[in-house]
């Protein structure tokens, strides 16, 4: 009997506690509550959080609550939520997700609202809008842009007698070899060579192939799509990057590193483990803040046809399920404003704002490279999911680095995977 009473009391207390916990966040009815979702570690984007707080304080009609879902899970999470009928009101997406989400009806079609109240200085002011469209309708507004450049330690280059940053891919390889001193554990080039979808190898592989005017997939001219590279093209790229490992310019541990933000790379450049690495702007700033000597940036090496990198970045979109599309649009416009970019450490996607931007010390490489950056538009328009191509590419390159396959075998397998995805 006693026992029973104890249990009943325990349960009663727990239920009460549950109600208290659950009831804590009731909202008032006359204020519109919006949820905004972003994907970076909160500690990195305190400026953005502060700007949003300011937005909340500046008016009393809309209250924005920020939530964070890590990038690695963000797409899957929204796909689940959106199709179930929920999700945040305004969300930050990667450029390459917009088409898939827009075409499956998960994002609001922004055509009408853009015509009625144009964002910023008009939609033509934005870079990368070609990725926001699907069937000629706009589903996302480019928010930030970035690209990758080579980040390096000027002091290490100088002491090795390298006076000019290498210009072509071949020079780059030779320089990296020269900068390596395996006895003391210094390596020429640190880059993410891991196997996972989302890893950085994909970008390097594309830069190399694009600079030879090759592309993994391309239109076949008859309204369909085909693989745009030959076995020899891919094997050549694989052989090129594999030489960094074979000639001791990169440590083999990098075959397990997927993210360019990995402490091994960021801290590696700061400590001088690597003379050169490969970073987008926020990562470069992080490395620079850890380094005791100034870091510098330089453009991506040139190929026989051109010098090229990808124009990446983030898009802002409105959830199709939102109950407050007008307020969501108002808040989205606030995020595009100059005031936000003063505190948010990313490059704005609006050319007018970008032109005003003061590039920080050592960031000239980004300013030089951005005009040579192209979007993944061609890949996105193809029926193959970009994440699938990304995954297959990184895996096959890593299988060469780890000695499982010859470049020829791996190239053949990669082309077969691409054909299967198309």
């Amino acid at each position, binding site marked *: 009997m006693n026992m029973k009473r104890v249990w009943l009391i325990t349960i009663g207390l727990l239920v009460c506690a549950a109600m208290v916990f659950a009831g804590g966040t009731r909202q008032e009815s006359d204020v519109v509550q919006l949820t905004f979702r972003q994907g970076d570690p909160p500690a990195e984007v305190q400026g953005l959080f502060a700007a949003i707080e300011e937005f909340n304080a500046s008016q009393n009609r809309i209250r924005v609550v920020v939530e964070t879902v890590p990038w690695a899970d963000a797409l*899957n999470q929204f*796909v689940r939520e959106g*199709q179930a009928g929920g999700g945040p009101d305004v969300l930050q997406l990667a450029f390459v997700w917009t088409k*898939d*989400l827009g*075409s*499956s*009806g*998960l994002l609001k079609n922004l055509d009408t609202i853009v015509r009625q109240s144009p964002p910023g200085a008009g939609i033509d002011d934005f870079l990368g809008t070609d990725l926001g469209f699907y069937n000629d309708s706009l589903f996302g507004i480019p928010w930030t842009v970035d690209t990758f450049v080579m980040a390096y330690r000027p002091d290490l280059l100088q002491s090795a007698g390298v006076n000019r940053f290498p210009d072509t891919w071949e020079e780059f390889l030779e320089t990296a070899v020269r900068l390596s001193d395996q006895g003391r*554990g210094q390596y020429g080039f640190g880059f993410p060579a*891991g*196997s*996972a*979808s989302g890893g950085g190898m994909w970008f390097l592989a594309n830069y190399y192939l694009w600079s030879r005017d090759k592309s993994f997939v391309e239109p076949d001219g008859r309204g369909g799509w085909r693989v745009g590279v030959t076995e020899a093209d891919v094997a050549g790229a694989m052989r090129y990057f594999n030489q960094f490992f074979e000639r001791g310019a990169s*440590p*083999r*541990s990098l*075959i*397990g590193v*997927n993210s360019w933000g990995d402490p*091994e790379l960021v801290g590696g450049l700061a400590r001088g*483990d690597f003379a050169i690495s490969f970073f987008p702007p926020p990562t470069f700033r992080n490395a620079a803040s850890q380094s005791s000597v100034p870091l510098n940036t330089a453009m991506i090496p040139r190929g026989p046809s051109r010098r090229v990198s990808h124009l990446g970045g983030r898009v802002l979109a409105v959830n199709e399920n939102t109950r407050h599309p007008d307020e969501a649009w108002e808040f989205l416009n606030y995020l595009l404003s100059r005031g936000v970019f003063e505190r948010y450490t990313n490059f704005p996607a609006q050319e007018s704002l970008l032109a005003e931007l003061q590039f920080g010390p050592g960031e000239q490489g980004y300013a030089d490279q951005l005009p040579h950056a192209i979007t993944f538009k061609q890949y996105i328009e193809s029926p193959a*999911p970009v*994440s*699938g191509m*990304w*995954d297959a590419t990184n*895996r*096959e390159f*890593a*299988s060469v*680095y*780890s*000695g*499982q*396959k010859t470049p020829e075998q*791996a190239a053949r397998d990669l082309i077969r995977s691409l054909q299967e*995805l198309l």
Partner: protein
Amino acid sequence: MAIQRDNELVTQTIARARRRRAVRPFALVLPGLAILVAFFFIPSVYNIWTSLQEISLFQIRRGGTFVGIDNYLRLFRDARIGLALVNTVWWLTFVTVVARIVLGVVIALLVNSSSIKRWRLSGFARSCLLIPWVTPEVVAVAAWQWMLHPRFGVLNQMMIQAGVISEGIPFLVQTSTVWFAIAVVLVWRELPFVAISVLAGLQSIPAELYESAAVEGATKPQILLHVTLPLLRPVLGIIGLLITIWTFNNFLYVWLSTRGGPGNFTQVLATELYTQAFTNYRLGYGAAIGVFMTGLMVLFSLVYFRTVFRKTVEDEAR
């Protein structure tokens, strides 16, 4: 008269109790059963339905096209599935299950030995054993990745210091060592469950059995072989089945430590499922892999029950 009334009362009480008992079992089991059905069986049926469709991750609301068993036919032709199956069965499951059972029994015997008891170390040893089990998987993998790092990892540095090797070994990226590394992480994290269960089994063996064996002049190895191990069979039987199933379906260890790499070298069925459904957006195909995995485990469990389990139950009864 009074006695008769009493008797009547007793019969009535028993009859009432019987009636109640007929309804009661369902009422008792119902909450658990309801949760089970809602949480496991309904989604599984949905999943089987999905596996018969060509459906993209983005098409859940619109629905896909019914393609019958196409996804399954494809699965049997897919060379990557073959590789993942071998990896799952041999490396992920068999090697680590055997290692855990063997090490678990050894550790449990050690901790339960009279020496440890004499030195009053039992509580301390049990506490140490529990540490890996409370470590979240994410932390466990991160810690091992960190320790196994070729240049900054403490294990490589120790070996270099001791002169065993001259350069750090990249355990998690070279094909010759990567599976061992994953197995070590997994065994480390999951060993306590086995060791503690076996320890529990050991402690429930009556002391008289040992005493009578000792009186009959049995040596320690003989006691171990003929008394202890046979009596551990029931607990090992059930633990073996459970950890086999849990490990076969496990996605976290491989995903967190290598993402199935280098290349596809350490892909297992669960990571292959994830890649197909969430990276290549082929939800139907991913679901088919899931159903295939469940099927294999059903088969395994049936065989296991027929052989290992029947035997232990019969032994118990005898």
